[in-house]
């Protein structure tokens, strides 16, 4: 009962935050803040999609950028080749969903049988393949330079776009909450905990991993669409390792396996990125903001290995459990063949 109650309280809190963010552009009219927050929402979608792999299923992928890039390029190419109209935009969304679903399904089937580090390497190779494709297929992608494109009417206004990004993030959050709390979501967590045991309970581990990979891939594609639309420009950078690393770090700093953590992580990374670049006016060292990022990452992993949300949860949980008996040390079981 208390669990349900506290869940409700959390939901109310999330709703208040979402409402606050929704009315923000009408009371605080700062173009740069709106753009920055839109970026946060877009990367929150990407980080949440990554969290499905890393936090819920226990899969480390180094190729997540490929889905992000597919989304970005699909919308870019559609807007450039055809008219920047709503119908083509919706078609681009549909094609992105199909493409990312098919690619994540095939890549998943090919690679998810592998042990974790081999899987990570192979996904990196697949993402590299897409990067090369984007560089070399110049007639469509304009190579490394990329291309600008116009967007449909309803995406042009910064406030409207801000609200669309916010709505996307909220919808993805709600969908993924439901997904991770479904019976299937519980099996994903079981796989993260102990693959062999999940198998011997009668669950086909590979199928679950592929499902997680498809869900995660499609959502990363959606984030890619929003990202390209926000810049009205796309180039090969959307397929680079940086995107994957951003997603990875946002998830880790926020707290893996929490979804909210991914959102908070996206906020922290995007804001600190912004501020550190601003500080370059104060001292030249801040132009090298990547140095400070490195330090932040190291400190985060050292002091908050479970991320911000994970550490907070532990603090809360630890307080509640203080009265319970200390954990007995495990007896060593007898060895056998």
């Amino acid at each position, binding site marked *: 009962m208390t669990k349900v109650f506290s869940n409700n309280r959390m939901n109310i809190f999330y709703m208040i935050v979402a409402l606050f963010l929704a009315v923000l552009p009408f009371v605080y009219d700062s173009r740069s803040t709106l753009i920055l927050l839109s970026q946060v929402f877009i990367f929150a979608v990407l980080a949440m999609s990554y969290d499905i792999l890393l936090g819920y299923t226990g899969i480390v992928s180094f190729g997540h950028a490929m889905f992000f890039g597919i989304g970005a390029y699909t919308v870019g190419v559609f807007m450039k080749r055809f008219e920047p109209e709503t119908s083509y935009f919706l078609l681009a969304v549909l094609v992105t969903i199909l493409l990312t679903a098919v690619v994540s399904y095939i890549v998943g089937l090919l690679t998810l049988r592998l042990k974790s580090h081999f899987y990570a390497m192979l996904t990196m190779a697949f993402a590299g393949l897409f990067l090369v494709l984007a560089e070399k297929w110049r007639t469509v992608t304009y190579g490394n330079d990329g291309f600008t494109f116009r967007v449909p009417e309803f995406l042009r206004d910064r406030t409207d776009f801000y609200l669309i990004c916010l709505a996307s993030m909220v919808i993805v959050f709600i969908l993924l909450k439901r997904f991770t709390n479904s*019976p299937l979501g*519980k099996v994903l967590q*079981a796989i993260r905990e102990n693959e062999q*045991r999940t198998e*011997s309970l*009668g669950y086909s581990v590979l199928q679950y991993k592929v499902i997680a990979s498809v869900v995660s891939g499609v959502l990363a594609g959606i984030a890619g669409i929003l990202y390209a639309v926000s810049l009205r420009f796309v180039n090969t950078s959307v397929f680079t390792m940086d995107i994957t690393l951003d997603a990875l770090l946002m998830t880790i700093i926020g707290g893996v396996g929490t979804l909210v953590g991914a959102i908070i992580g996206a906020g922290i990374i995007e804001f600190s990125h912004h501020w550190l670049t601003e500080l370059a006016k104060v001292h030249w060292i801040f132009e090298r903001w990547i140095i400070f990022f490195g330090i932040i990452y190291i400190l985060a992993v050292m002091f908050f290995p479970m991320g911000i949300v994970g550490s907070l949860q532990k603090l809360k949980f630890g307080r509640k459990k203080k009265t319970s008996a200390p954990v007995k040390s*495990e007896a060593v079981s*007898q060895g*056998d*063949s």
Partner: protein
Amino acid sequence: MTAILETKDLSITFGGHTAVDSVSIAVPHNHFKSIIGPNGAGKTTFFNLLSGQLMPSKGQVLYKGSEITKLSPTKRTRAGIGRSFQITNVFPNLTVMENVRLAVQSHAGVRYQMLKHFRSFDKFEQEAEEWLKLVLLDDKKDALARNLAHGEKRKLEIAMLLALNTEVLLLDEPTAGMSLEEVPAILDVIRKIKQRGDRTIILIEHKMDMIMDLSDSIMVLFNGALLADGTPEEIMKNEMVQSAYLGGLHSEHTAKA
């Protein structure tokens, strides 16, 4: 007397070492069979071959007359062969309830439901709670599995196996590493399942009094080979078995070979 589980000439070789050597057994329906043998005799490896964790180098495994040698552990569990593990093998960061519920959910066939909240399946929770009561672990249902004491983890392991509701239960040293006070509870659970009379149980154990008390038949593994297979009385009288346990057989055995 039809066999529910059968092995024919089952062997597995790791490098040059034959861990299980041409073992052929037939386990009838609702039978209680124990496997004994010194450490390193290949008991757990034999279990891994039955449950599909390992693929044999040679030989067959048959379940209800049809061959399952090539089936994955997942498919064998779904067919009706469940197992517990000797080294505690639970989901450490899930609660005790969640651990068992996953087994109940699998048995109920709810495997790919991704749109409903897990709480809308009340009956899973109730069923899981009943299994936890059976192994006297219901008061710990909200604890994380990793915070359980060793004996409690063993109980959880058994609750998960029972919740799968499979016809065949493979129990790999369910009391290993338990304190003496904890053993009777587990023994009680196993006895209860046996008394229900609708399960086939294969048990690996070192505790001889427990085996003699429960088993319909006992098979003895030694250096991977089947040394003897018979009723508890026959096994007790068997000289080879006695010397295998008291030592001295090794040289004799290799001399014969």
